[in-house]
């Protein structure tokens, strides 16, 4: 809630700072405050607490959740989990596997990060903890080859969900984005209709304005179906997703709220908006 009770220029500054401080970014902040100023005029709002509610609604209407689609999986699905380095992809793969296997899905994992030290071992440990198999090659193997084998195994075992971890990559590397594009093409070809292919982009809530560029670049390379916003158990608010949803219409599927296998929550726009404005 606001510190002040009347709607004056100081309050508008407070609104701006709440949004900017939450990494909403200049453009979206200006857009939101413009909408609010108009609403205050046309609806004759006098009370700051009413403005507060309006702010929450304005934020909430700009973002959408898609957890139900994933959790109520109908056909078979192949998830390709992507994103820049260190955002929480491998841990999120484990968390999603956890949710889906708890609800009765037969899950298989693919250790698609064949580059980073101990990436394969890290995913294998999660597989053991989850009771889920992991298809892996050796370090420095071709990641597309891992996907090839994982999809073949998924078909042979009639798996419901195959989740592929990939190595962290900065979108500034054309060759790495090219490698990701190739992985998607290989997966589509090998799946051959066996399962829907969905790309999940993992974004760290501590990320500032670069998060929007990440979403644009990854979407351009492999098309992104939904976002997983991690590390919301910290103090960062993840406001950059407002710009992402606004400009690119990509829903948020889940939020990561810790380092354990159960620390994944379905994205709720209203709760997120409430937490964001503080």
């Amino acid at each position, binding site marked *: 809630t606001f510190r002040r009770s009347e709607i004056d220029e100081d309050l508008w500054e407070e609104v701006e700072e709440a949004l900017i401080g939450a990494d909403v970014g200049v453009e979206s902040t200006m857009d939101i405050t413009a909408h609010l100023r108009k609403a205050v005029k046309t609806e004759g709002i006098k009370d700051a607490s009413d403005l507060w509610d309006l702010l929450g609604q304005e934020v909430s209407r700009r973002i959408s959740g898609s957890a139900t689609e994933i959790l109520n999986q109908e056909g078979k699905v192949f998830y390709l989990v992507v994103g820049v380095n260190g955002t929480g992809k491998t841990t999120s793969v484990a968390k999603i596997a956890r949710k889906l296997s708890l609800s009765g899905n037969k899950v298989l994992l693919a250790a698609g990060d064949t580059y980073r030290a101990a990436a394969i071992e890290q995913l294998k440990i999660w597989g053991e903890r989850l009771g889920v198999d992991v298809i892996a090659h050796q370090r420095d193997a071709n990641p597309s080859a891992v996907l090839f084998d994982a999809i073949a195994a998924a078909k042979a075992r009639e798996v419901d969900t195959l989740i592929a971890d990939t190595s962290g990559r900065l979108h500034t590397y054309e060759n790495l984005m090219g490698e990701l594009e190739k992985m998607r093409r290989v997966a589509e070809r090998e799946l051959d209709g066996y399962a829907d292919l969905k790309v999940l982009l993992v974004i760290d809530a501590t990320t500032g*304005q670069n998060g929007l560029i990440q979403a644009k670049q990854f979407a351009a390379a492999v098309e992104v179906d939904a976002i997983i916003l991690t590390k919301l158990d*910290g103090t960062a608010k993840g406001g950059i997703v407002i710009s992402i949803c606004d400009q690119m219409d990509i829903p948020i599927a889940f939020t990561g709220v810790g380092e354990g296998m159960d620390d994944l929550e379905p994205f709720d726009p209203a709760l997120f908006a409430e937490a964001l404005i503080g």
Partner: protein
Amino acid sequence: ILSDRLQQTFKRLKGHGKVTEAHLDEAMKELRLALLEADVNFKVVKQFTSKVKERALGAEVMKSLTPAQQIIKVVREELEALMGGQAAPLSLSPSPPTVMMVVGLQGAGKTTTCAKLAAHYKKQGKRTSVIAADMQRPAAVEQLKQLGSDWDFEVYSGSEDPVTIAKNGLEHAKSHGHAVVIIDTAGRLHIDDELMSELENMRALKPHHVLLVVDAMTGQESVNLAVAFDERVGLDGVILTKMDGDARGGAALSIAQVTGKPIRYVSAGEKPDSLDIFHPDRMAQRILG
């Protein structure tokens, strides 16, 4: 980019007339937007722009025929002064081993940075080990062992709690004549009281350098996290990672402003040679876009 925006602002406002304080205020608005877009914390932006305006009210800008350029000059100077003035590598202790403790949020790049530092000192002919004190992340110790094998440095590991492992690792380094020992710690939230206390206990082992590793794409929370780590653990320096991305890196300015601690290194890649001394002038240029 900012210099163009300022040129436009002055052209539009003053035409061929004198520069007024009102014009300066408009210019400071442009500066504020540019810094916020670069992820500089909004409170730091407030302080910074008022400092720039204060200097800009002097003759160098007000009497200049090219006020936009003069303001950019002032901005650059203030940015560079804030972020450390000159580049300086970490000092090594006259009585080895020099102990470095590396801390930060989850996924910032600590383990990789520890490995790069180790490779760097090894290349200088200094016997170096890294203590694998992250007992929480799956395969964290294995990650360091593989990096140690890839990049040729020793890894000390154990099965006790992190502080005991660090203590034992330091004794091992001393008795084996290591010149440099680097402690890799588990990523943690600055609001996790228990894990921050663990770091305080590790700090009691008296490292020469406590380095905060920060992801260059960090947004507004850079201030809160840096202040928390500095207040609880005490920082000697900061290392900015993933600078090979295109994040503007405003977190560097935010952290420099609120902690006063120097940024020592910049990491720009995943290979051992991608650790460079921090250059304030290059960072200023990057933040200004």
